[in-house]
């Protein structure tokens, strides 16, 4: 089976997850080698996900943990889990 562009778009997310059969992976890679649009789509989607993952390193607001602890301690002083 030869995959067309629409099939590639549908499988793109699973491809990036590695959640795909070897057969479909080979089909996608064969298609992408021939189709510059799909190659660009795959690369740029991968790149944006790398940027998004970078957000994980975003700093918590200064004092976040202290304020959270204080708020929880206030609650703990009054009562426990119901």
């Amino acid at each position: 089976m030869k995959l067309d562009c629409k099939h590639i778009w549908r499988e793109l997310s699973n491809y990036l997850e590695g959640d795909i059969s070897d057969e479909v992976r080979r089909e996608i890679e064969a298609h992408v080698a021939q189709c510059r649009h799909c190659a660009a789509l795959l690369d740029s989607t991968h790149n944006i996900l790398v940027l998004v993952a970078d957000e994980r390193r975003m700093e918590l607001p200064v004092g976040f943990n202290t304020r959270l602890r204080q708020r929880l301690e206030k609650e703990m002083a009054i009562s426990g889990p119901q």
Partner: protein
Amino acid sequence: MGNGLPAMVGPGALKKEKEARLIEDVLAGRHEQFHELIAPYRRGVYLTAYDILQVAADAEEVAQEAFLKAFRALRSFRRESQFSTWLFRIAINEARMRLRRRREVPLETAFPGEDEDGDYTPLMLADWREIPSEALLREETRRLVQESIAQLPEKYREVLTLRDVVGKNIAETSEILGTTTGNTKARLLRARLMLRDIFAERTRRKPRQKQPGRVAP
């Protein structure tokens, strides 16, 4: 490139047994153990709230509320799901409620190219792929990413945040959102393609370099 997604960064989840013991401790009255129980999830809960609400102060309040609720309701936590799944579900619900109350953001924003049942057609931007890698280290890029996430309709923002920002796997993301894995994958695909298009559009609109005292075109 297949497994190119970055692995989860951060302290990682506590071992399940340790978590179970901490929960027992809290329920037995050693409340201070709750701080240790939630320590691995503070950042993830905050990031989730932040991505949904886009306002730091609101995200902090919602995160605090979520942890407080989890503390109060800890006895009702059923052990068949993971503690973190339960906790993130509380956080998502808190953030959703805050969003509803705020009423600034329409519940479901109509999005060009969006058709729930059909395929999402990504923009053809063959020349775009070099931009993010060269821009990777720039603070500006981070802001653009954040603004692009903010532009996603709510349900796509949620799934993308849980999977791609916080780093939950598909199964846990589905459990938190109360949906099937098939549905989560479909939403995730759409969210990622939309995000790419939004980001590309924003990047193209941006002047490449800020010039002091630049004259408006």
